[in-house]
């Protein structure tokens, strides 16, 4: 063969996965944005703190037996009335704010991650079906999505909460509430995934690599899962990140509105709702620190999501 080795393919090498990751454009853009790195660090630290909360706290704020009323309303450690070991002070029940934030963040993250996962699984599944099957099934799913879109997450979550309360006779314990929150968030966020996946599927399924797979007689299911699905994942990742932030906001808002986690098992939103009552009384730490924690968590996740979206957008490169 007259073909000489190609000049821009020097000695073929097989870079390791890590080497390739470090070399990739995404990692490059990551390293270039200091803000993104800070955000990633914050998210990582908060995530770790939430994960290992039981090891890092001075009390389990969810266990009433560990709350000492005598320790209530202590201001943060660095203030005049601060007391050990209550770094960020305590609330009216003697709950250590720092511990409560870690545990509250756990709830926020659990609800967020589970809710988003639920939404993603539901949305991706329906989107795949709609995009691949097409026709009446597609129309049906997309019309349902339209209806769903009519109602923002908060509204749906509130409705579900109200209906469940009504069905369970006004009584929701903490774990049921958690499930309700996850389901509510899942049910209100799936549309974006479904639409995105469907759109990608419609594009991808007309690409020739799918035709090539059809030619060798692979069944539709295999083609969908092996070929089409992985190629729709980029935008899904971005949506999931941004949705995680939204889900956490939604959970906090619901808790703030009184339809979320109960006072005995407070999430960040519940802490803020409780703290809101002490806004004027000088016990600012009860609301300030949970608020700060919530805002920085969401902001960091959003920053990551923003960066991810830009990094994955070929047009911006």
């Amino acid at each position, binding site marked *: 063969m007259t073909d000489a080795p190609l000049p821009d393919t020097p000695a073929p090498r097989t870079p390791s996965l890590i080497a390739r990751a470090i070399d990739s454009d995404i990692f490059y853009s990551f390293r270039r944005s200091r803000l993104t790195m800070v955000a990633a660090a914050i998210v990582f630290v908060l995530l770790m703190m939430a994960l290992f909360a039981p090891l890092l706290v001075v009390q389990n704020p969810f266990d009433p037996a560990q709350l000492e009323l005598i320790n209530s309303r202590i201001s943060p450690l660095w203030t005049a009335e601060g007391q050990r070991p209550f770094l960020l002070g305590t609330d009216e029940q003697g709950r250590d704010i720092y511990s409560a934030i870690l545990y509250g963040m756990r709830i926020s993250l659990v609800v967020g991650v589970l809710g988003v996962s639920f939404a993603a699984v539901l949305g991706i599944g329906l989107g795949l079906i709609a995009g691949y099957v097409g026709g009446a099934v597609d129309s049906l799913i997309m019309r349902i999505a339209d209806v769903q879109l009519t109602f923002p997450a908060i509204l749906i979550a509130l409705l579900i909460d109200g209906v469940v309360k009504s069905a369970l006779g006004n009584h929701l314990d903490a774990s049921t509430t958690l499930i309700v929150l996850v389901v509510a968030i899942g049910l209100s966020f799936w549309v974006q995934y479904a639409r995105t996946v469907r759109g990608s599927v419609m594009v991808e399924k007309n690409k020739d690599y799918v035709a090539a*797979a059809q030619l060798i007689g692979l069944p539709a299911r295999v083609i969908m899962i092996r070929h089409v699905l992985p190629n729709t994942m980029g935008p899904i990742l971005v949506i999931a990140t941004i949705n995680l932030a939204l889900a956490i906001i939604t959970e906090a808002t619901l808790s703030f509105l009184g339809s979320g986690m109960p006072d005995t098992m407070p999430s960040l939103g519940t802490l803020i709702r409780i703290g809101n009552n002490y806004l004027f009384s000088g016990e600012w730490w009860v609301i300030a620190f949970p608020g700060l924690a919530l805002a920085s968590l969401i902001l960091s996740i959003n920053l990551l999501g923003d960066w991810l979206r830009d990094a994955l957008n070929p047009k911006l490169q």
Partner: protein
Amino acid sequence: MTALVQARNLKRAFDVSKPWLNRVIERSPMEFLKAVDGVSFEIKRGETFALVGESGSGKSTVARMVVGLLPPTSGDVIIDGVSMSDPGQASARKLLRRRIQMIFQDPYASLNPRLRVDAIIAEPIRAFDLIQGERDIRARVGELLTLVGLHPDDGQKYPHQFSGGQRQRIAIARALASEAEFIVCDEPTSALDVSVQAQILNLMRELQDKFGLTYLFISHNLAVVRHMADRIGVMYLGRIVEIAEGHELFRAPRMPYTRMLLGAVPDLAMSGRARIAVSGEIPNPIDPPSGCTFHPRCPEVFDLCRKVVPDLVDGVACHAVNKLIAPPSEAVPAARR
């Protein structure tokens, strides 16, 4: 030797009607785009048959019907005696599958960006269960890569790490992986630069010589077609308007459209050929002209052309060329709105 591939009066219409409600309100009928409207040809074993035509003439639709990616509205494709649409021959068709492969136009879209090259090439091998054992498969993939001029280690990379020409080589390797005999090439080089195009065209010809491959070669570039094909069919708005041996067609084009096409090709040799003035653009395929669809652009148009669809007689579908042959008595003007 009988033909390996026979296309018999292939037709394919796409429903492009407005939504039901619009049709009701505007009282418009259903609309069909006849992308392919009665195409027949044969390809002999080991030969290259080419289809040329401008964009939208239906070349890709024919290609997809030939390989079975798209069911024809009517007509049939018979490959090695097996019908591609007869339900009775399903099992025979299954066996046939691996002998037919396709190379696509866009080397960027025809390789799954998430799969490594060796996985892409190995996919047909696994799907048809041609070779057992990971090691043997890997060895075969390496062999195929070498065959198309790549390095066996290139299998470890992802498609985006290759240039367009290299990708097209990978696509060819994939087509060869299933030991295909008949390869449909839908504009395999139109996305490539000339220097790379030359590499690919040469490679395809080499492989044909080596393995006795049969090609259905589709292109809009007459020069490329001339270089590659033994026989050529010229398509216009879903029909083959002229079909001839390659050198015949270029030496003595008969159909005015062919002549116009040839005339429109910029001439590198600057030979100062006499050419037919090019006029007009391709009509809207949803509402094609009556009779011979080329008549609005044809310099030799006469009455009959506007009414009667010319048949392909002796390799040409043109009333002017076939003037002496009387129109068949049952031929009625094609119904048009």
